[in-house]
């Protein structure tokens, strides 16, 4: 089973990009899509599935809207949740690995700017830059999910921009 986990909070602007991208591949064959607001869902995913593609908003240097495909070892392990409301992604991965999870993990990250600017009105939904990145992020997920011998189909699928 390949699980695509879209992580994000719908009420926090661009943070919802993970769920938006994951929903776009929900109808794809061989994919089990899960939407969650807390990375604890990643523990379950890594324990239950053979291959997990985590789609999440990321803070990184490239411009907002950049799509990054990352392997587990590229993630910053020192990120910790300030609050127990949420589990940090590295904590969830460490927890799952400690519990014996052997699933392969790939991360499709969409770079976001400031999630909610202090002076801005709270916003539900994506900014223009991040919305424009959704088709590329969907393509990146499909590239990880589909067998490598069919790359052309992949790109065509991405161009159709299903659900994006």
């Amino acid at each position, binding site marked *: 089973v390949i699980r695509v986990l879209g992580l994000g909070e719908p009420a926090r602007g661009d943070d919802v990009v993970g769920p938006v991208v994951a929903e776009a591949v929900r109808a794809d064959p061989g994919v089990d899509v899960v939407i969650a*607001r*807390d990375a*604890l869902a990643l*523990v*379950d995913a890594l324990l239950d599935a053979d291959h997990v593609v985590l789609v999440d908003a990321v803070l990184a240097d490239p411009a907002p809207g950049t799509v990054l495909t990352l392997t587990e070892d590229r993630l910053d392990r020192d990120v910790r949740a*300030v*609050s*127990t*409301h*949420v589990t940090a992604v590295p*904590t969830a991965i*460490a*927890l799952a*690995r*400690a*519990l*014996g999870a052997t699933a392969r993990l790939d991360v499709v990250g969409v770079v976001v700017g400031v999630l909610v600017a202090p002076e801005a009105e709270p916003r539900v939904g994506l900014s223009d830059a991040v919305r424009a990145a959704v088709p590329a992020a969907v393509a990146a997920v499909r590239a990880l999910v589909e067998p490598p011998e069919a790359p052309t189909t992949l790109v065509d699928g991405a161009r159709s921009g299903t659900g994006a």
Partner: protein
Amino acid sequence: VIPEIREIRVGCVARVEGQGALRLRWEGDELVDVNLRIFEPPRFFEGFLRGRSCLDAPDLTSRICGICPLAYQFTACAAVEDALGVTVLPELLDLRRLMYAGEWIESHVLHMVLLHAPDFLGLDDVADVARAHPDRVRDALRVKKAGNAIMATLGGRAIHPINVRVGGFHKLPDRDALDALADELEACRPLVVGLLRWAAGFDHPELRHDVARACVAPDAGYPLLGARIATSTGQAFPVDALATRVVEEQVPWSNALHARLDGAPYLTGPLARFELGFDRLDGDARALAAELGVVPPVRNPFRSILVRGLEVLHALGTAARLARHAPVDGPPAVPVVPRAGAGWGATEAPRGLLWHGYELDDEGTITAARIVPPTSQNQLAIEGELRAIGPRLREADDAAARRLAERVVRNHDPCISCSTHFLTLTREGA
């Protein structure tokens, strides 16, 4: 002679909900300042509730907390129902008890194993605990998931449920889902017994700091929902008397108000409920408590991890029973007509006593609100415990003292973002 000054600061208390810090200051041998600094920003909920319909209070206040949203919803319901003179049917109150058990289970297990156990095992975080005790962590995650499943089955989703309303629920649950829930809750009970035996083997440091304990009176079972408050000093009074008996005060170092009951610090939460409601605890939980030597009153807060575990066992048993008998047809709510009034409600959040008060105009619009969460009520008691353990902190080196001081705070599972929703922000010199 100028006394030696020593200060211990913990910049951000880890493994608690929200943002808080600690500052302890000695002059010579005298511990002069103990400040649990809650710097989580004020959140003004009581302010922005004004002008909103009383029917919106449950969903708005649920956003105070992502761990105990239901506590806010049910407490708001109780207060608004009191204001409107609404009597909720007993079977709907049972559904509330069932759903509330879900929140207790997920919150308590999260704290016990993911946040609190590392303290006793000398480990940094839950990943370390999982490496050393994978079976315990696996069990805890399964039990937590069962708690989430109760919330999702009755509430539509596990966090910030959408099915709660003044007068009852929007929709009743489905029989098959309830039966599946009951099966899983029963299957979780032995896992919690295992977690409790494990935690009973931890080394629990000695600490005793006696303050009054207060909770919802155990009139209708173990403290949860109800119209009266009971205290360990033998008092019992209606919830609305809290409004005058509890005085909240602002202190410079905290964005959460400090509360006193009848002029004195007091403690709410599992230790208070266990002390005042032990007779109403689930029979299996009582028997295990006796076997493990956890008998009321438990006055050592380091043993709160065991009381939380016993409350999880109680909640699993209660919830399984209620799920088997919960109504699946009939009206999901009693009729509610907004009108003028004032009302108070109190319930037991996982961390302790939570109470709300609302004043409503002729249309049922909120004109005044007061929300008093457990953590702001517990702040003074926690600071008192830090004072009580002061001599041990004084002897320890800085790293060990910081660690021990943080443990004293974590014993009470404080929910810091809940505690800073207060009404007035006073700025000095601004």
